[in-house]
């Protein structure tokens, strides 16, 4: 599969990424201050969830899940309406506690929460868990056709990618990118990242240079985009450009995302700087352990990848991968668990993960 890219097209203009990041933090703090005055203020709890998710997704802020837990707890005490349940569901879903989220949504339904709000959340959960994907696709098509907006097109692209309809996913992502008519860099960086992921990791034969092109664009929109830096650094390192990889990772260290330290450790090993690498690896291990202690389901897949690789603990990796599969049996989760089972020399690991998926078996 190949793709056409207009390398000379700068893409839509957007507010400078540094300004946008400062303003996100500003809006986030402003919303919390208003919540502190009165948790029931219209729309404020929901605004906090939205801002915190952006901070997590784009800035690698690892304290987001703890803050959201606090929000859910305080909001539940302050507001006895279905609003609190919807917020609790969003918070649970953000932490990949999908079963909890479904319970909150079921209670919200009984309390008469708006149907559209419920359906949107259920759709997100189904997509994240890889269940009812045909129905998810139909619904995503409906939303995207009705609005034509980036925020509806990107999830459509994602479900197409989940269904391994990569060419269609690519087309939808490009449509989202081209049709964007606002000025926030976050949505544009998001589409670029999704395209990088598509071409770097999801297609059967990855195209690292195309993936790098999109990751670079994501970083151009948002220099503080931690995940894009990590993924681009991986590509650079795999091509032997360890200096470039290091330059990408160093500014992201302040995010405290252990994946940054893990990838940096790999780069340092490749450069023969073994003592520094060991320190970074220890920090990464400690970081993952801390995250797993608080939010196991949210970080199980990334931690599994770490322990299967430089973390050097295949048993733990397999345990985490299985936890992830049990929580959300997506094709990617199953593939990951299968691959780790093979590394761990687990009996029966050679079976096709897709067969296991269709049979509903654990890997």
């Amino acid at each position: 599969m190949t793709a056409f890219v207009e390398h000379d097209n700068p893409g839509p203009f957007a507010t400078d990424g540094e300004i946008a990041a400062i303003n996100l933090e500003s809006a986030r703090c402003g919303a919390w201050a208003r919540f502190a005055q009165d948790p029931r203020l219209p729309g404020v709890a929901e605004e906090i969830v939205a801002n915190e998710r952006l901070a997590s997704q784009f800035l690698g802020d690892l304290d987001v899940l703890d803050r959201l837990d606090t929000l859910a707890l305080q909001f539940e005490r302050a507001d006895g309406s279905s609003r609190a349940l919807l917020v609790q569901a969003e918070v649970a879903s953000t932490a990949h506690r999908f079963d909890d989220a479904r319970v909150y949504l079921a209670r919200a339904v009984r309390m008469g929460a708006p149907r559209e709000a419920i359906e949107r959340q259920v759709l997100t959960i189904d997509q994240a868990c890889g269940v009812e994907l045909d129905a998810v696709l139909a619904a995503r098509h409906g939303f995207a056709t009705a609005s034509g907006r980036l925020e509806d097109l990107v999830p459509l692209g994602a479900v197409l990618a989940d269904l391994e309809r990569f060419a269609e996913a690519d087309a939808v992502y490009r449509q989202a990118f081209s049709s964007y008519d606002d000025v926030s860099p976050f949505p544009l960086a998001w589409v670029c990242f999704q395209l990088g992921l598509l071409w770097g990791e999801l297609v059967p034969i990855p195209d690292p240079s195309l993936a790098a092109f999109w990751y670079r664009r994501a970083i151009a929109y948002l220099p503080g985009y931690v995940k894009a830096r990590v993924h681009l650094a991986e590509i650079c390192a795999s091509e032997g450009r360890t200096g470039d990889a290091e330059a990408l990772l160093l500014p992201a260290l302040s995010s405290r995302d252990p994946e940054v330290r893990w990838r940096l450790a790999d780069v340092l090993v490749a450069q023969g700087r073994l003592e520094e690498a060991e320190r970074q690896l220890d920090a990464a291990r400690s970081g993952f352990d801390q995250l797993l202690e608080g939010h196991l389901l949210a970080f199980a897949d990334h931690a599994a990848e770490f322990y299967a690789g430089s973390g050097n603990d295949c048993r733990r990796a397999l345990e985490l991968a299985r936890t992830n599969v049990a929580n959300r049996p997506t094709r990617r989760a199953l593939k990951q668990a299968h691959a780790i089972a093979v590394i761990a020399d687990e009996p029966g690991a050679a079976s096709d993960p897709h067969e296991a998926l269709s049979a509903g078996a654990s890997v």
Partner: protein
Amino acid sequence: MSDHVDGPRSIGDPSADITDLFAFTSPDNPTRTVLAVDVFPSAGEDAIFSNIIKYSIAVRRVTVVGVGNSAKFQPADDEFRFSFRFDVLKRDAAGKAIQLGLCTLPGGRELSLTVGDEKGASTPEGDVRVFAGLRSDPFYLAWDVAELTKLPNLLQHTNVLCIVVEFDTRRVLDTTKGSLFGAIAETVPPQQRSLIAPPIARIDWIGRPEQTNIRLNNPALSAIQDLRDLWNQQTPFAVSKELQSLFLQRLKDSLANWDMHDGKADWTPEALAANANVFLDDFLLFDVAKPINDESHLEIEKSTINGLPYQTGGGRTVDANSIDILLTWLVNRDREFLQGGATGATKPGMKSFPYFATPNTELQTVAESVELAATPDDVWSLIGQFGGAWHPLTARVNLTGAGIGQLRTIQTVDGQKIVERLEAIDDAKRFLRYTNIAGMAASQYSGTLEVKPKGSGCVVDWRAQFLTSDKTDRAVKVIVTTLFKAGLESLKPRFGVAK
């Protein structure tokens, strides 16, 4: 809210989201007029302007071409436009981020400015002075608008990004040709190439307050299409002829609904239609030859619809109670003033440039909790004692007085002294509230401690809110967080951790 978050699109970049527009005579110099636009609802203390948005205030001469039920204000084609652009951040010698801007004045003159500089920037001739930066939000809304029940100010302690233009009225507006004007403000993105759809002309615009959130998108009207983004794409002073009937019908429906909020019909259908027509032409009217004061907002429109010559300069001052003036007009046609739950914004405006009050220090919040494997009453019996010394960082506690109002003086293990006052306590609900009197580098410090049942155990929730001076908020937050965590952690071995 006035125009705060007035459409799904404007949620994208808060610095492009217009909240309010003002037009008034300078309280400092009656020969000068002030125009101002606010953006970024509930901006935090570090908020800055987008580097790709053009922020504009445009003014057109207006003529009254109809009165009574034919009331109509006709804007001229020519306009006076003040446009602001801002740069990406630069660092000064100390490494501090600064943002520079450029204002293009009517006629093309340019004026450079630095964001946040209270002195602003002036033309060499002194006829125009501009400011841009963070200020206390002058807007206040103290209603549940859908139910029309009073609330405290929903925007208390919030800030906005503010752009102010002050100018010599006669020199800039040429008042020999007339003194009545209409103003709008808009945020304009770059006209970028799109393969899919035509570029959007603007992110947001505003004329009179509440065109979008109260009139077009009346929260009391159920199951209506959200017209706010469509409205924001209209050209100010020239709403699309094809869409005028759609917007007009929505305005009529909305105003009819507002009229009946108190159960009384104060508007005839003809007068209501005239009101809708006037609001459809959405610009902030002001007359520089007449007095503009805190009560004059909308007076030009109201008198003209009532078939009378207007007496004031209308406009909108920093302290104008715009929401209550509007609601009174819509609900009972000025029969009885509807006063919301607040009589002013967090801070009043200033009498001198830049007229908008300094930003509010951000209210800091610390919240920590712990879940314990003990009954709420058991835990409360320990920590619910206002004079108790259960906290591991406490060396000694002395109580002064009794009951509500009593003081506790805490001597910490490192020799610090903290004085706190008991404001409320409810042993049945296992809740207490206290304020700090001394010992914390913070003001308006209010703390709550609460124990609630959870499962077979309980959860202890400890919270504090406070204001700090500019430089110390993070440091104080760390101190309070450490204090709370240490205290709550100490409860775990005593009572056990909930499973």
